[in-house]
């Protein structure tokens, strides 16, 4: 008899008796493929317990991490993009926006909130990468500008959490000018001597790096984030050479003198609160 002949059947459980694993119970680390229960992953602030990989989280999670007792007030939530250039590539920008809003439950790529971290009052503007790559259009520029203005009015420190590919191409020059606009507001904040902490997370590139992300009184980053001006693919194509191994990581940027510190997510809240206290006392 051929040894390759199958004697016993493979899956014998009938479809009716099959036990389903509920969706979202487990999380697989994209870094080391370690599988962790979702609840445990969340308790670990979406950082892999095994390899320390910092997962890409959004504004909701950062507000949860930073603000005391999960209490905070969102503001300027009702601002929406209105497609000033009537932009259409493979499909209309308006369609893309609608679909993204529905899919993510967000209104654009940034949310702003006020609250306290270890008792220290602060305004946090956090970007959402899953909203068209966290790209900056008019809405991101306006919401960030208003957050800065509120910091000035109420004399509250600012923290911006960047996670973005850069400018939103569908808003073309409008998008470019948001770099100027946010820098204009930041110049006023700086004049008032109000602290601004910029946290760069994976990824922070393009027009974000070339404007507010690099303009913090303190520029800090999460470990292992991609931080740069030009994207690695563009650089590779331009110079026609392979890129160094750690090129454009947080560690690389720190080493070259453009970051004050790399702060792991678990230490983020105490670090911010402590720093704000030091600057105030």
């Amino acid at each position: 008899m051929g040894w390759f002949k199958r004697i016993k059947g493979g899956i014998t459980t009938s479809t009716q008796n099959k036990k389903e694993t509920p969706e979202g119970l487990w999380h697989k680390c994209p870094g080391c493929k370690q599988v962790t229960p979702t609840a445990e992953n969340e308790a670990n602030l979406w950082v892999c317990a095994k390899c320390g990989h910092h997962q890409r989280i959004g504004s909701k999670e950062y507000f949860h991490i930073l603000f005391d007792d999960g209490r905070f007030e969102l503001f300027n939530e009702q601002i929406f993009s209105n497609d000033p250039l009537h932009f259409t590539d493979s499909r209309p920008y308006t369609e893309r926006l609608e679909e993204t809003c529905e899919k993510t439950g967000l209104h654009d790529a940034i949310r702003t909130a006020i609250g306290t971290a270890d008792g220290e009052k602060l305004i946090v503007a956090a970007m959402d990468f899953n909203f068209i790559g966290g790209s900056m259009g008019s809405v991101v520029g306006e919401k960030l500008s208003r957050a800065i203005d509120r910091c000035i009015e109420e004399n509250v420190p600012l923290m911006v959490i960047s996670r973005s590919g850069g400018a939103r191409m569908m808003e073309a020059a409008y998008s470019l000018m948001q770099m100027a606009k946010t820098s204009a507001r930041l110049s006023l904040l700086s004049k008032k001597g109000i602290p601004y902490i910029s946290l760069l997370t994976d990824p922070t590139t393009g027009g974000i790096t070339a404007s507010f992300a690099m303009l913090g009184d303190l520029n800090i980053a999460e470990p292992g984030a991609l931080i740069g001006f030009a994207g690695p693919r563009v650089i590779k194509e331009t110079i026609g050479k392979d890129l160094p191994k750690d090129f454009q990581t947080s560690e690389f940027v720190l080493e070259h003198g453009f970051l004050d510190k790399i702060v792991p997510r678990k230490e983020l809240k105490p670090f911010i609160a402590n720093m704000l206290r030091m600057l105030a006392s």
Partner: protein
Amino acid sequence: MVFLDFENDIKELMEQLEKSRAIQEKGKVDVTKTIAELEDNINKARERIYAELTPWQHVQVSRHPDRPYALAHINALSNNTFIELHGDRTVKDDKAMVGGFGSIDGKTVMFIGQQKGINAKMRVYRNFGMANPEGYRKALRLMRLAEKFNKPIITFIDTPGAYPGIEAEERGQGEAIARNLIEMMQLKVPVICIVIGEGASGGALGIGIGDKVFMLENAWYSVISPESCSTILWRTRDQKEQAAAALKLTAADMLEHNLIDGIIPEPIGGAHSDHESTFQFVRKEVKKHLTRLSKMDAEERIEKRIAKFSAMGSFVEE
């Protein structure tokens, strides 16, 4: 002379004109009339073609190899009084960014600009007008120098983008541009910026924060070049014409959306066809606004500058 693909009619007429002139020089046949007719026809063809350029054709004109670059503008505007100053005082002297003092009718001005090379060898020397971080830092150093001695600043923007390279990243390309944006907002002296050719993205904006921002008629200004936009959104470079239209990158579009303050006209046929007239148009606009801006109080200028950029954006609030 270099002709663009849509300038074929002009090219043919120019060739005929050359021939007629050669005949005229020999002096055996009088072709004065033919020459006059040809010259007239060339002007008519230019008028016709340049009256309805597509957005992509504007981009082609902005990159014309005979187009006057920053130094040509600076030398013309300053009547060859320009003294170039070098270096960022930190790393090196970036050849893609030039700057220095010059005088316009007896008044000293700080000139800064991205410089493209005028021939193959110089293009490499100038890194195709793509500045590194030290270029932006040199520009900022010179702007500070101008501020110290209360001299107005004029910047000439003409770049396919800030250079994307390993060393550029190591030396903080993003930080260098970001620093210029915030510092230029608070400069106490008048700042006039003119996009004279290509205004590509953050690399252009890095010297583009001014009390007045102008574009030459055939220049373009946007967040990305049409080719790169096409690559990203359509996954092919072939949609560059469609991308150029979608980006609304022409001077007329930019003015319509209030993202620039004005358009400086070019002679019919584009700046490359007549440098002198182009310089005259620029001079007229620059002088007018330098006078106006100089009359304002520094604080008022800064306030207006910030208010202008703060108003840029389009959204709905519910």
